[in-house]
């Protein structure tokens, strides 16, 4: 502790070209840029990178045409390619079908299970919603196990989607039709669309429930900037493009039983049905509008007065921007859509907001390891995020 009283070593007048300074002292380079009123990417403090979106291009329409077992092969149900600055985020959504074996109250047919409904009644809200299973892959040009960042982003996407209540369990329910062979030998698929048809399918299909499960694979190329934001926005666009195939059961398979035997004991087991996907018919995934939202992240950083170039050679530099004058009071600046190594490593305090176009939030995460997060800055970032959200919504409508 003896060196406490020692003075700070003075800055030697050694000069480096900007690109070298950025490498050897990212912090200083960043501060210098900021003191001049813009960022190393030459964006303004509150300026976002440009976003272009392309949905449904990867959706495999041909695969839909081939009748395939949904359990085994995954087809792309929805997709989105998002480009933000130099980053590409490719999202494709695939699906599978699972059988619901345990009942939740919604699943019970009213008439016969009314009594059971009563005992298993749960008034819980969140349990009625579901999420997709995202896998985020950040390409770094080499193979290897998942990094923490990938896992954390996947988990955050899952959590946010679930708590946004955008997908109800009901909307993913499979209402299977039946494929029957008519007397004349022609094959027809009956879906429970009308009352009459409902009767037929009800008689034919087993009392089982199936649901779609959605998986999202999100690949990030040229990672820089807030991965979560780009993944979330891309996922949002992709989800809106999802088309689910209709599924049916073959008539012949509706009453299949088989025996199992082990150690001298017998039991009859109902065989698993092959649920088949209709190559012709599909429908758009119903999403609840209240969940549609877009994410943006803001970084907060304290300006270091020592790094202020304008003060170093203030004699000649008089054309200072607004920030320069305010600097005495406002020492913390807010940067939108942080990107680049310097910004990502030096900024310790971040605010990440997922906002609906109507201004309500779905997710908010503030990390305050660095600069103090004041109410003003929080409000400023909230305002920006609302603006950003409506911008992106517009974009999705234009699409």
């Amino acid at each position, binding site marked *: 502790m003896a060196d406490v009283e020692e003075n700070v070593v003075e800055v030697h007048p050694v000069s480096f070209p900007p690109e070298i300074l950025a490498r050897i002292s990212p912090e200083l380079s960043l501060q210098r840029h900021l003191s001049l009123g813009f960022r190393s990417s030459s964006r303004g403090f509150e300026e976002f990178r440009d976003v272009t979106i392309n949905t449904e291009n990867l959706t495999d329409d041909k695969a839909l045409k081939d009748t395939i077992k949904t359990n085994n092969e995954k087809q792309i149900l929805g997709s989105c390619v998002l480009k933000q600055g130099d980053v590409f985020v490719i999202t494709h959504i695939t699906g599978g079908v699972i059988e619901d074996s345990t009942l939740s109250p919604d699943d019970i047919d009213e008439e016969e299970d009314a009594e059971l409904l009563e005992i298993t009644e749960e008034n819980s809200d969140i349990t009625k919603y579901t999420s997709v299973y995202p896998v985020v892959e950040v390409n770094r040009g080499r193979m290897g196990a998942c990094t923490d960042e990938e896992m954390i982003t*996947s988990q955050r996407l899952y*959590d946010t989607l679930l708590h946004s209540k955008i997908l109800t369990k009901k909307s993913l329910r499979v209402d299977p039709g039946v494929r029957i062979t008519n007397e004349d030998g022609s094959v027809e698929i009956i879906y429970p669309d009308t009352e009459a048809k409902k009767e037929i399918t009800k008689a034919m299909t087993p009392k089982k429930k199936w649901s779609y499960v959605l998986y999202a694979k999100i690949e990030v190329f040229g990672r820089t900037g807030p991965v979560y934001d780009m993944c979330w926005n891309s996922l949002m666009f992709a989800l809106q493009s999802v088309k689910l195939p209709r599924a049916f059961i073959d008539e012949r398979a509706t009453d299949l039983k088989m025996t199992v035997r082990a150690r001298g004991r017998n039991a009859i087991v109902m065989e698993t049905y092959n649920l088949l996907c209709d190559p012709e018919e599909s429908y758009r995934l119903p999403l609840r509008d209240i969940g549609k939202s877009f994410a943006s992240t803001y970084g907060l950083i304290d300006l270091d007065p020592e790094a202020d170039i304008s003060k170093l050679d203030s004699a000649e530099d008089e054309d200072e921007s607004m920030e320069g004058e305010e600097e005495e009071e406002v020492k913390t600046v807010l940067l939108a859509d942080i990107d680049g190594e310097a910004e990502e490593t030096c900024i*310790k305090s971040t605010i990440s907001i997922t906002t609906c176009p109507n*201004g309500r939030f779905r997710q908010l*995460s*503030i990390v*305050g390891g660095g600069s103090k997060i004041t109410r003003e800055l929080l409000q400023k970032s*909230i305002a920006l995020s609302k603006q950003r959200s409506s911008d992106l919504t517009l974009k999705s409508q234009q699409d």
Partner: protein
Amino acid sequence: MNVQTGYLQNVDGSCLYSLNSTKVISSVTGPIEPKPRQELPTQLAIEINLRPATGVPTTREITLQDKIRTVITPILASYKFPRQLCQITLQLLQSGETESLFNQLELAACINSTVFALVDSGVPLKNLAIATTIVIDSNNNIIHENITDDILKNNKSVHVIVYQIENNKPSNLLLMDSHGDFDEQDVLKVLEASESNVRQLNKSFREYIQSKLSN
């Protein structure tokens, strides 16, 4: 809230922490010699490991670990021990919430428990950090104590807030993690409610440490 520090023998600091139905043990060992790949040239490195009450650790636990890290890193006086390691291990004994849907109660409990264990271990801290969970229910009521799994399930929005404690008062916001449906007003209301919660917790925190020391 129930706290017992110095619960374990073989680690430098430990804390058994329970709040309502959430129960967690945390342990801290350090500063110790790190593995070469963990070493930081100028700072104390931290390693956090969290184990769920049932099953094996998944991405959920990794996400929680990351959140705990963002809170613990700024409060450690990490430049005091360069090239050393602080090993933090957390074991949940009882989750108190539906693990597939929530992690908010666990997160708050883990953070508070870790801070207690750090104090117990004598690892240098610049400040304390105190976490609390707040729920806004479907009637827009703010619920800030005795949060159960049922309350969580019926939430409109749910928030975890961590404040830094400076000079016995909550000062900086270290973490806010919110999900659900809420607006700007809600955020401000939650921050206010959490601040008084944290004040309360800080009081009992201090009392506990005081009683522990006077023994």
